[in-house]
């Protein structure tokens, strides 16, 4: 179904929060999902997959254990949002021509929006690569090279982020709507629903301040 990008962002943010991400992380997960959806990439589907996989896991278990050296989780795989926000926080490292290496990343496409924001900050193209896939981004557009269709891969043993190259050919630019299947939307909704307080008669009456009559 066609959705507005604001709807996708709001829904994704709630779903991320429902799966246990902090509010700040959820805000960025929402924006990342929106960014991918605007490029007609599988942001909502991969969000749903990673939330299902990491449901309830503590951040410390899926985030980089340290900032020096290659980033890896203490055990198991890196959450792409934990890796992504850290990448954007540390974007200036890339400018010093230092690549960021991330080991065992779940759904690495979800890191791409963070690389794009790093690129906007640095005002230089940034490249994300795993297996034989390369994506360059200037923040808004992307140049995708993906001979083996690895873009939606569940896991990459190594993801490298570094300053990219400028391209002659036009970039793929974002659209203004996103498409999300009913199935994925509903799966995200099961996470989002966890953030809603069950309605009680008391909250219905008091919580929004009913009392005075509506009619005059």
């Amino acid at each position, binding site marked *: 179904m066609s959705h*507005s990008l604001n709807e996708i962002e709001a829904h994704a943010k709630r779903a991320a929060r429902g799966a246990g991400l902090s509010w700040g992380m959820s805000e960025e997960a929402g924006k990342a999902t929106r960014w991918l959806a605007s490029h007609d990439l599988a942001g909502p589907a991969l969000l749903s997959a990673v939330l299902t996989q990491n449901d309830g896991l503590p951040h410390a278990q899926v985030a980089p254990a340290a900032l020096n050296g290659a980033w890896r989780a203490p055990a198991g795989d890196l959450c792409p949002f934990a890796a992504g*926000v*850290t990448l954007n926080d*540390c974007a200036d490292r890339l400018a010093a021509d230092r690549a960021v290496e991330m080991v065992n990343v779940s759904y690495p496409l979800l890191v791409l929006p963070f690389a794009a924001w790093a690129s906007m*900050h640095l005002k230089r193209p940034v490249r994300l690569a795993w297996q034989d896939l390369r994506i360059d981004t200037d923040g808004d557009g992307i140049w995708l090279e993906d001979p083996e269709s690895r873009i939606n891969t569940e896991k990459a043993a190594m993801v490298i982020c570094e300053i990219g190259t400028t391209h002659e050919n036009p970039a793929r630019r974002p659209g203004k709507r996103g498409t999300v299947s009913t199935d994925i939307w509903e799966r995200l909704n099961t996470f989002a629903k966890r953030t809603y307080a069950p309605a009680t008669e008391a909250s219905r009456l008091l919580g*929004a301040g009913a009392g005075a009559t509506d*009619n005059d």
Partner: protein
Amino acid sequence: MKQQTETIQTIAKRDPALVMRLSRLGSFHQSRLSFMRILTRRMIRENWRFSRPIFEFDDKGVGQAVYCAHTPDRIYSLIAFGHDLPAEARSDRVIAEAWDSTFTLFDGVPSEADIARLRQNIPLQEAGRVTEKELSVSRANRSVRLWDHVVSSLAAGKQPDQNQINKVGYLMRTTAVYGSGKLGAADREMIADRPECSAPFQIEMLSVFLTRTYVRDLVQHLATLKGGDRAAKLDPGIARSMGIGNSTGLGMAPFLVNHPMLFNNWIAAREEAIATVRNLPSATGAAVAVFRSLLGRSLVSADIWHSEHPIQIEKLKQLRSDLGRLNAHVERADLQNARPWDRLYRWAEAELGEDAQECLASLMLEPYGPLVDHLADQMSDGKPGAFRIDGTQPVADLRAILERAYGWALQINWDEKEQCARAWYVSEEKLEPRLGERFEEPIAPYEQPLAPGRDAAALYAALRDVDSDASLAAFLLAHPEHRHTVRRAQIVDRAPYAEIRDNTIGSDLVPIDMLRCKLAFFGATHFDPRSDRWVRICMFGNAPYPEELQQNQDDDWSYPPLVKGGK
């Protein structure tokens, strides 16, 4: 020869620590920078045309209408559906499921197929679905008492009683106007580069402006069907005095907290305007005459502003008395020389309550359209990248920001129950935002991040043992729970009016303060709280109707005429 060294210090914008308190934000008044006035000025300046290609209703008001606004470059159409609503189903709450009328603002002119599609969806509101051709979705309920009075008076060949109209102020009130991508509609980003959409909420304001015309036409239509040849035509002056009501609940309060950069830009534009006028070395007689005249009309406005809510009754009592004192002072004060507006403002700061101070601050801008109206262009949030956190910032710098911008919050003991007695949450029912009692209801696990002060204090405490030179990136890697607040702090460092500098979860919180601030920026008047968490207002009261716009070049319709009932 000795050089004259006297320098006059420039008056800066008011301190956020003064402006961003809830009691002051809850005392804001409309101004030249209100979104309704930005819209009507543009309509007049660009000579917008209006048409009504469809208007079909039976004697119960069931039917449909299309109203088109023709700008120089494009057409926007309000599509209105009228319904026969049983009295027991009439509710202003978000959780309502049926309304007297439902609307959408369409981008362009709708085809028959569009209207047929929308007829299946718009009457359902949140349960329906729209597309990127639709820019807003809204609904309205009748003020039954006034509606019946106006229809029966006109049908009997008489004009309705102006006193009864003044008591309510509108024939219909909207209970939600959804824009920017809600329910599948076009995102604001899709239209933000159109000049007529560049200021905030212009689409929503246009929708309400056209809704008011629809309501006037519908009440006349029903009266004519009922009275036949005997029916009177509604006096234009009486029609003019009627606005569109709006019932606003808690949903607006989180908006201000959730859009810190946008909120900053609204406040900063008005503060810039106030500072500009305070810095004027002198004022012309003509400027003073405009000010005096609108102050007189503000007194009328305060007089006809009714509320039964105890808080508002007290505020109104003081506002009326203060405006009376201001008027007396203005009669004898020199308003022309030696920075007259700054002297007047400082007199008010010392002598009057916040409500009258803010009324004066807005009034002072009135004679100076050419100096302040352009600030409307700075009120949107054109920098969507503001959410990026600078992870290279040293911890010491963040600490300094927290001390500067959240000093008020660092002094509060957030463990005390009364300081955190409330929690904001979203209800499962239609996702209605609500405010509950943290220690009496099981809502804490669902709390929304709407207490920036408490969260800033928690961040400050967490930073206590962190090395001052350490970078935020490392801190955030270990403390993702503070990411939200670090982002806010970095925003408020660049945008000083981004944050409400008050407790938004305390036992003494009055949520309607947040609602009034936002509604005043819309241009609303006559705030009438119905509880501590929802408020009724009037929009476009005394505004020109589409065909009257060109006779109203003065942009002063927000102030009621000195003679009640039309000018």
